[in-house]
């Protein structure tokens, strides 16, 4: 049976109210289109996990989709504060669970490798471990020294955006690869959104670049420009102007509502959103090609 769905079908089928969602991507390849589709389908009580919640979770929290966030750096990258998540936390309206980057990514690493927890060397800072009881200390049975451990994170659904995959979901990513692979292996269900669906032979021509094998993927959605205002290396640039603009929009409820009405509820899908952005934005985000040298795998 084909695993290729429209994004709206995939969200309807795989994302349930109350799910723990990990929409992956460290600044790069953030699946904004999937976040917008979840908002349009009015999912509620989600637990939103990401190392950096970024604007995608700010928007989902603003739209009322979340009851909790799990994160390690809650800012608008390169700009400043992540205003909606921050305000909801300060107001006591949103639960949160917090790690350092290494703690967060170690939780995913444990989830992805089937381990119950992951050890890390102590950092002695202490306070984050004091306020988050999921951080524990255990004794290394070999040296007798303490190590810090965090439990496996196993999202109900991981959403991963990729440059290209084949119709079975064998997915290739380049550029910043963040925690995409770990999120996919840790999750129960995996939705891949992709800039391009390519022939299996294209994937087979460069197997080292395949980070996610098709057999762990549940849904494949062809969504060009899925990552805007984040970016896809080699396809389009990060829309830094929008990250600055969101800093203004998110200063008050009215402008956030207007934004969601116009750019999320007011469009059918990502294609309509991208067309609505218009030529000036399209041109501004165009990327000049810079190709790698071809590698020789050899014929055997």
């Amino acid at each position, binding site marked *: 049976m084909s695993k290729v769905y429209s994004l709206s079908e995939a969200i309807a089928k795989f994302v349930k109210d109350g799910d723990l969602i990990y929409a992956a991507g460290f600044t790069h390849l953030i699946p904004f289109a999937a976040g917008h589709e979840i908002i349009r389908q009015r999912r509620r009580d989600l637990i939103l996990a990401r190392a950096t919640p970024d604007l995608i979770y700010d928007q989902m929290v603003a739209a009322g989709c979340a009851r909790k966030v799990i994160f390690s*750096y809650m800012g608008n990258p390169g700009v400043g504060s992540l205003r909606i998540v921050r305000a909801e936390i300060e107001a006591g309206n949103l639960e949160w669970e917090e790690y350092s980057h*290494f703690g967060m990514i170690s939780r995913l690493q444990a989830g992805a490798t089937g381990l119950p927890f992951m050890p890390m060397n*102590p950092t002695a*800072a202490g*306070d*984050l471990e004091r306020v988050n009881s999921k951080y524990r200390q255990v004794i290394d049975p070999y040296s007798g020294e303490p190590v810090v451990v965090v439990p496996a994170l196993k999202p109900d659904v991981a959403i991963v955006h990729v440059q290209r995959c084949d119709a079975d979901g064998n997915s290739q990513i380049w550029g910043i690869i963040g925690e995409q692979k770990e999120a996919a292996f840790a999750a129960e269900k995996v939705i891949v959104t992709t800039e391009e669906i390519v022939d299996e032979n294209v994937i087979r021509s460069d197997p080292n670049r395949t980070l996610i094998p098709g057999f762990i993927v549940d849904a494949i959605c062809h969504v060009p420009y899925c990552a805007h205002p984040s970016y896809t290396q080699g396809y389009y640039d*990060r829309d830094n102007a929008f990250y600055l603009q969101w800093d203004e929009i998110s200063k008050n409820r009215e402008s956030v509502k207007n934004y969601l009405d116009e750019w999320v509820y007011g469009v059918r899908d990502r294609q309509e959103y991208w067309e609505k952005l218009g030529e000036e934005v399209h041109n501004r985000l165009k990327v000049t090609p810079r190709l790698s040298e071809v590698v020789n795998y050899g014929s055997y």
Partner: protein
Amino acid sequence: MAEYTSPELLTINAARLLRDGDVVFVGVGLPNLACNLARRTHAPNLVMIYEAGIIGAQPARLPLSIGDPTLVSGALSVCGMYDIFALYLQRGNVDVGFLGGAQIDRFGNINATVIGEYDHPKVRLPGSGGSMEIAAWANRCYIITPHQKRRFPEKVDFRTSAGFLSHRKEREEAHLRGGGPQAVVTDIGILQPDTNGELILTALHPNKTVEDAKANTGWGLRIASNLEFTEPPTERELTILRDELDPQRIYLKGGE
């Protein structure tokens, strides 16, 4: 003497602390500018690595976020987030880390998490990101910050990352790989830890006074007996910063 802004002064003094061949865990903003300035002056073999998993970046334009695609194109290597923290930082392959935060206390501990109570935050800050691990495991840490009393309390509200804790001995007993904060570069001067791990004023920038430093520090700031004065920014340093690295003055404009 050339005119310069406060961010220029901070960046130039931070750059001078870097050594040729250092492997530096870089953030965007002033640390990124400081590293690129050092690379173009006294440290051509500096290796810049970013928490996004990029090793040996050579950004062709000014990166505007920690995951800017310009950091990837032309880099030596790209790895996942787990690997950058585990293989590079935890394993001890990072010489220098740059840190910042809303509060830095007498013993160089940093708060980047919350002002007020953690459970009922008065001001919720972005949180640790990678700073908890950088502060523990980079061989040397440098902090760049404007010098203001509210940023330099006796004790931080929340200890996001470790300086010398309550005393240099306490850090030593924790057996952390890294040496802790080596210098805090401010717009007034440079603070460095003494033998107890307490930050004291070791250098003043041109036209700044001991009184400026004391008045803007939240504890009884002690002054090194051999207090030094930093060299003013040179024309060459300013030209590289202004013409090559941040021509649009995104990070270098005056004010905070």
